[in-house]
């Protein structure tokens, strides 16, 4: 199924600090394109006090994707998701979700399902009452689905939410969000509180929902390993900045681990951007992103894993933040 999902979407947009894409211009020129993006942000920023939780975030997420939003703790993942659902208002820039402004109108709200970090539920209400509340508050509520799922999970409908385990709570929150029948599902660290087995089952459930109802999903985690099996689109967020965004398949194809002796350094093709360098015993290993084909040279070409890729961009993002911080220190 994974392979099928990779087939039909072209590489839509990538963005990182060095190459900001002229998003706003292309959006104005081709309004039809708005329909194919579930989330579009332009120079989006959110500030808490004097620090920016998210800065200059320009991103286009195509529809019918399972998007992994990955970054270290405090990178701005939750902020981005809360902006997308309208719980936060941006301090700068714009964000468009499913063609509308987040949280603006009931019609906008009913199209976006959201499971917040730690899956908050009303501890005094029973599982059944949560479902009834979902029914009362959402016009497209799929009660049959919700009940079926609760039974499949083995949850007692009369059980108070306070007595649910972390995993059960996450499952209840996911059920509420999915039974709403949204077009876009936003999940903030959905598997953080789950043990490995529950984690796998939870992700399987999400994949089932995706294949049955064709929703787009954005799920965040600080571990790419959690999401690797399910996501076909990746966004790496580090220190309030988007470091990398793109289709997983494209990203894996365009990145290479090259190793060779140090003397070969000069032979790297100009269309290769070096993401990370490692030296050991005169041996050079570089992770490059190629805009074309990697030239046949004395370098040995090795495939990269998603893990390598995310780690490389994370450390690059961290270094960039250090530079920004020291720069800011001087200017003060």
């Amino acid at each position, binding site marked *: 199924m994974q392979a099928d999902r990779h087939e039909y979407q072209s590489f839509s947009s990538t963005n990182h600090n060095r190459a900001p894409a002229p998003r706003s211009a292309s959006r104005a020129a081709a309004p039809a394109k708005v329909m194919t993006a579930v989330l579009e942000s332009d120079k989006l920023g959110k500030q808490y006090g004097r620090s920016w939780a998210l800065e200059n975030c320009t991103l286009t997420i195509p529809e019918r994707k399972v998007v992994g939003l990955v970054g270290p703790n405090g990178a701005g993942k939750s902020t981005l998701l809360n902006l997308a*659902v309208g719980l936060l208002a941006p301090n700068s820039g714009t964000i468009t979700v499913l063609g509308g402004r987040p949280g603006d109108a009931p019609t906008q709200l009913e199209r976006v399902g959201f499971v917040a970090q730690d899956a908050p539920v009303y501890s005094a209400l029973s599982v059944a009452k949560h479902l009834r509340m979902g029914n009362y*508050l959402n016009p497209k509520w799929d009660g049959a689905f919700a009940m079926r799922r609760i039974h499949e999970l083995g949850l007692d409908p009369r059980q108070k939410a306070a007595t649910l385990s972390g995993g059960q709570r996450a499952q209840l929150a996911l059920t509420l969000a999915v039974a709403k029948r949204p077009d876009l599902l936003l999940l903030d660290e959905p598997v953080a509180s789950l043990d490995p087995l529950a984690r796998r089952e939870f992700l399987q459930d999400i994949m089932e929902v995706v294949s049955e109802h064709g929703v787009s999903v954005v799920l965040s985690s600080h571990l790419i390993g959690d999401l690797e099996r399910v996501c076909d689109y990746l966004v790496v967020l580090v220190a309030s900045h988007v470091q990398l965004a793109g289709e997983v398949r494209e990203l894996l194809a365009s990145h290479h681990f090259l190793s060779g002796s140090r003397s070969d350094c000069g032979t790297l093709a100009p269309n290769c951007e070096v993401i990370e360098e490692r030296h050991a015993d005169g041996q050079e290993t570089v992770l490059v992103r190629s805009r074309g084909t990697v030239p046949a040279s004395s370098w040995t070409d090795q495939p990269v894993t998603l893990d390598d890729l995310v780690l490389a961009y994370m450390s690059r993002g961290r270094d960039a933040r250090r530079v920004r911080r020291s720069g800011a220190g001087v200017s003060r």
Partner: protein
Amino acid sequence: MIRSSWLQFRTQAAVAFGVLAVVGVVLAVTGPHLVNLYDSTVANCNAQHDCSTATTVFTNTDGPLQIFGDFLLLLLPILVGIFWGAPLVAREFETGTFRLSWTQSVTRTRWLAVKLGFGVVTSMVAAGLLSLTVSWWSTLLDQVRGDSFSPLAFGVRDIVPVGYAAFAFVLGVTAGLFARRTMPAIAKLSPGIMKRSS
């Protein structure tokens, strides 16, 4: 949204109206006794030329109950502010459930409007019922005392407690909104209500 509010609120409402019912029964049972006593003392005191004794005897009857009724009417707005008003928004922030409730297919404005309306109406109904019962029970006592505009009596009769309850509820919500946590909200709220009571 209204059904959803009711779903979350009904246990508290049931407790409140249960207590009110008990108070109502107690006052209904003891009320006729006061009327009889009035008839036998104050009503014909002119014939006996000793109205002051009759009045004293009558107004001292059921002293604990009189105090209890007035005390409840003073307490009710405070309880409404603390248990219904303050947690309304603060509890949502405290437990993070605002991320659940404000991302359903109902806008935040509507959510707040319905919750506020629901709480204000329920608080007013509760205060109204209690005030009605106590005012009925005390009709003859108040008539004999004739001090309905003294600070204490004014605040615990007829529609005045209804206004206090509505005010206390909204004050509680506002305190909760700014404090974002239930207990600090209650702490901030208490002086406001006390000031109004004194």
